[in-house]
């Protein structure tokens, strides 16, 4: 890629929008994943009495097991949202950018 091409792409409004949007989505998604993960990890590490709680009291299933299930569903839901909703929008922006660049050529 030549310096000229780089400079053209960097200022292209579609590229600016694409990178801004992608950055925002990534930050939100990573934060949400890490938040759930770190909350579970912290509970496991510092509050085992909470992780070992039974809900309801007479249940044979501890909160540890439900937290594992929460982690699994969080991962699948966030992945689905990122791929099927955000990904589609980003791909459209990317296509617009490529069309723009081809048109300029």
């Amino acid at each position, binding site marked *: *890629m030549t310096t000229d091409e*780089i400079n053209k*792409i*960097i200022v292209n409004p579609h*590229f600016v929008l*694409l*990178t801004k949007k*992608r950055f925002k989505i*990534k930050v939100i*998604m*990573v934060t949400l*994943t*890490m938040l*759930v*993960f770190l909350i*579970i*990890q912290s509970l*496991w*590490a*510092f509050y*085992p009495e909470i*992780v*070992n709680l039974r809900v309801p009291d007479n*249940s*044979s*299933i*501890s909160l*540890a*097991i439900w*937290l*594992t*299930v929460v*982690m*699994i*569903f*969080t*991962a*699948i839901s*966030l*992945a*689905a949202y*990122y*791929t*099927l909703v955000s*990904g589609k929008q980003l*791909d459209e922006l*990317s296509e617009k*950018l*490529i069309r723009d*660049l081809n048109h300029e050529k």
Partner: protein
Amino acid sequence: MKNNHIIRGSQILSKKIKYTLLILFLSAISTLSFASGSISGEIEKQAINLPAISIFSAFVLVTIFITYWAARRTKSSSDFYTAGGGIPAWQNGIAISGDFLSAATLLGITSSIYTMGADGLTIIIGTLGAWPIILFLISERLRNLGKFTFIDVVTFRLSARTIRPVASIASLFVLMFYLIAQLVGAGKLIQLLFGLDYMYAIISISLLMVFYVAFGGMLAATWVQFIKAVLLIIGGTLICFLLLSHFDFDIEKIFSEASKASPLKDQLVNTGGWLNDPISIFSVGLTFIFGFIGLPHILMRLFTVKDAASSRKSAFYAITIIGYFQLLIVLIGFGAVALIMGNSDYHDASGAMIGGSNMVILHITHFLGGDYLLGFIAAVAFATILAVVSGLTISAAATIAHDLYAGVLKKGKSTEKSELLVSKLSVIGIGVIAIFFGFIFEHQNVVFIANLAMAIAASANAPVLLMAMYWQGLTTRGALVGILIGLISSVVLIILGPQVMVGVMGMDSAIFPYTYPTVISVPLAFLSIWYFSVTDKSDSAIKERAAYQEQFILSETGIGISDAASH
């Protein structure tokens, strides 16, 4: 003239390798038959093994046909390493899950839940915490920046000649440990099912692995992983259905019966037995989060699709399948405690589990579905190991041939044919090394060996890959020191830790008190990458920082990446 001579020479050598591999494959099959015959006196074992042998033979026959088909389509190094980038996203997603759901998951996590109860779930939480991060941060950029291996991405704007040798060694460490973990699992499994000697088992599976990969490359490996993943999901779902039906579809009952059967009683569903201090818990979390990001064979699968969007979709399909399977594993693990703990059919006179602690899933399968379901799951477990070792072997071959031979030794000037030849020779070499280390590590828990690989991947590969993709300030010096410190610190701390000093050497206590070294080695790797990069004032460092802009554009848009070859 000289070039023609070299090409002709490599064609002859390539043909010789094909014949050698065919002979190796036939000897693998005959080793199985011979060893099966050697246990003919044990009638009970033969009766149990027949369905397993039939189903597994069918799997092998189908995969031989696929390998033959794939071999005819594997002509270039791109075909060999990444199937020409022409795998559809959905198929790649299933194949990724097939590559990922290894012996460590199938045999190891069920065994961990069986012996440790809720503490075994930490591994599942780590796995599902890591995969979305791979999707959000790695999948698209990696596909846009790389060609065959993650080292391509790291060296995109850095000095390849400096980085490739060290990064390749770190990669090979990870791949070999992971490969050994799979082979140890395979050895035990075949020992139990076919009554084979551990030695025959390791040799047979290694020869099959060499056959698949050397002939069919990534295309064959993808299909093997795909078929195996489908079988695994069907098998897992079936076991869970039978388990739930045994307990009248009352999940609560599974856990209450498990608590009654376990010597841990109510503590079975409680945490704190295995990981009883905060640092150990965070260390396990760090190992999984960064470990999966740094697994070369999983990253390599993201290059087999045509573009970043397909890579993203692949990762999503993989997460869904892996998540679903982990849910099944939770139920199966606790169900096994309820149904087979203390059952004399599955334990010997001393109370030890027949076949070793990794065989939990097979015993519960036999309990719920009898010989035929055991046969099916055993064949699936065997296929699981074959699929995973194929993925690991192709990744290790790519590291040797593409990163070390073509990138370092030939300084990027090797011919396609010679690189392909080195890849195939590497596959044979890896097979031999895997057999050797399979013996050495025979008595180790498969989860432990896989975790060694994870710790090294987390410390040596993941930090430098993330920094290379997202930090403009990274320089060759920083990357080099980061990889070295990550690799050395993780290996040294593992050696000084309880798994080696207490578990292997028999000492009373370890110098480093934690099983997983990542709580030290990962931050150390990140810090050293940062420090040695920001203090790098060389001319090359200035150029490398300036080159980030082009890398950024390419990683965001994929402009300029080559179109996928169609298959």
